[in-house]
């Protein structure tokens, strides 16, 4: 133990909580992916040195209180409308870094139109999309991304295609829009994925400086409360079932399409 004390010295620190995270205890359930993603965003903001230039748009969902944890300016959007807030914020303050942070209910269900159109306009923002296949905040109802057969409080016998339709791949849709420059699907269930995810988030923010369109980062996540599984088990279930339907990795990583391509159509 004396040994440990020797190691635990300021100069030996290789990892500690970024200062861009506040000291508030997060209200999330133990093991919730939201916490990990918050940390990554905070670290990226710290590394890029843009704490004084970043505006976050939080959603209605479990991450409604994101503003209590990441120490930047925030707007708490109405359910599903974060892309609208972000659009105006970025267009009015083009030199700031603007990102939205939304759950799957928020982004893909009630806010599907705002998501689609912000991406289609190629708003120069970063969109973070926490896909935990569930409405966490309201008590585990079905989300658009809930897998077939998954039990939720509104699909107590499992999601059924005839009744509820198909799990929606919003990220694939968004990738098909010329307005997006970078679309990727990440996760934070182990150390390697956490590192990859952070890189993706960083790239999403850096793209704003390049002004090349919308960066869209899905993070396939767990909601262990909604899934009614312990956190570790939830991660394993996610790897096995969610990744099959929501394949991980970049869907698109391109400079924005040349506007001339479009103008030629009408000439």
């Amino acid at each position: 133990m004396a040994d440990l004390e020797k190691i635990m010295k300021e100069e030996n620190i290789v990892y500690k909580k970024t200062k861009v995270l506040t000291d508030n205890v997060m209200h999330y359930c133990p093991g919730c992916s939201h916490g990990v993603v918050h940390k990554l965003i905070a670290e990226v903001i710290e590394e890029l040195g843009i704490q004084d230039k970043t505006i976050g748009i939080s959603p209605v969902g479990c991450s409604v209180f994101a503003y209590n944890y990441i120490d930047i300016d925030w707007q708490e959007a109405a359910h599903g409308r974060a892309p609208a807030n972000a659009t105006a914020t970025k267009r009015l303050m083009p030199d700031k870094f603007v990102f939205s942070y939304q759950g799957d209910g928020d982004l893909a269900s009630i806010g599907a139109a705002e998501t689609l159109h912000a991406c289609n306009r190629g708003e120069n923002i970063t969109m973070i999309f926490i896909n935990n296949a569930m409405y966490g905040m309201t008590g585990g109802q079905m989300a658009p991304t809930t897998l077939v057969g998954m039990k939720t409080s509104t699909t107590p016998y499992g999601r059924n295609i005839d009744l509820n339709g198909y799990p929606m791949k919003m990220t694939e849709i968004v990738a098909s829009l010329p307005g997006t420059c970078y679309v990727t699907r990440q996760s934070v269930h182990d150390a390697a994925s956490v590192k990859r995810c952070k890189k993706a988030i960083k790239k999403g923010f850096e793209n704003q400086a390049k002004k090349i369109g919308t960066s869209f980062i899905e993070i396939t996540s767990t909601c262990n409360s909604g899934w009614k599984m312990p956190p570790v088990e939830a991660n394993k279930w996610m790897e096995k079932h969610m990744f099959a339907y929501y394949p991980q990795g970049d869907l698109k990583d391109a400079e924005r399409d040349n506007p001339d391509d479009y103008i030629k159509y009408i000439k």
Partner: protein
Amino acid sequence: MTEEIIIAGFGGQGVLSMGKILAYSGVMQDKEVTWFPSYGPEMRGGTANVTVIVSDDRISSPILNEYDTAIILNQQSMDKFEKTVKPGGVLLYDPNGITRHPSRKDINIYKVEGVEEAAKMGNVKIFNMIILGAYLKLKPIVKIENVKKGLEKSLPERHHKLIPLNIQAIEKGMEIVNKAS
């Protein structure tokens, strides 16, 4: 007869369902009842409480500031609800996890080692039934057979086989409750 009760503790301690069984037992005994829970966003953890009123007459307000009985299962609830017991009323608590014990002199304070006893009985889930038993010893507002009927009504069919164990726990609670010094 009107009995106004608050039951308060952590989420997950079975606070709400204990209130529900009590309320259902009241229904079985032909009483008027209301059950009103605290509610919040669905994140895990945090405190939970429920107000149960059992009465011979139509119940007016289901929400109260003062109670005949407070059943208290954690420290936060103690801090919040000790003061809400009517003078001469009852405060029943499980000392497990309680750091500041109740101190009022104008109320009747009882203890029941529910957590400990449930562990002894080999099933932590029946903790809340032990507490309920203790309460019913102090305030026999519903007969045990109506509690049984209440359990039958409130539990899904597939859990009916657990009713005897629950009754056992209630009886244990009746046995072990005692006045705090």
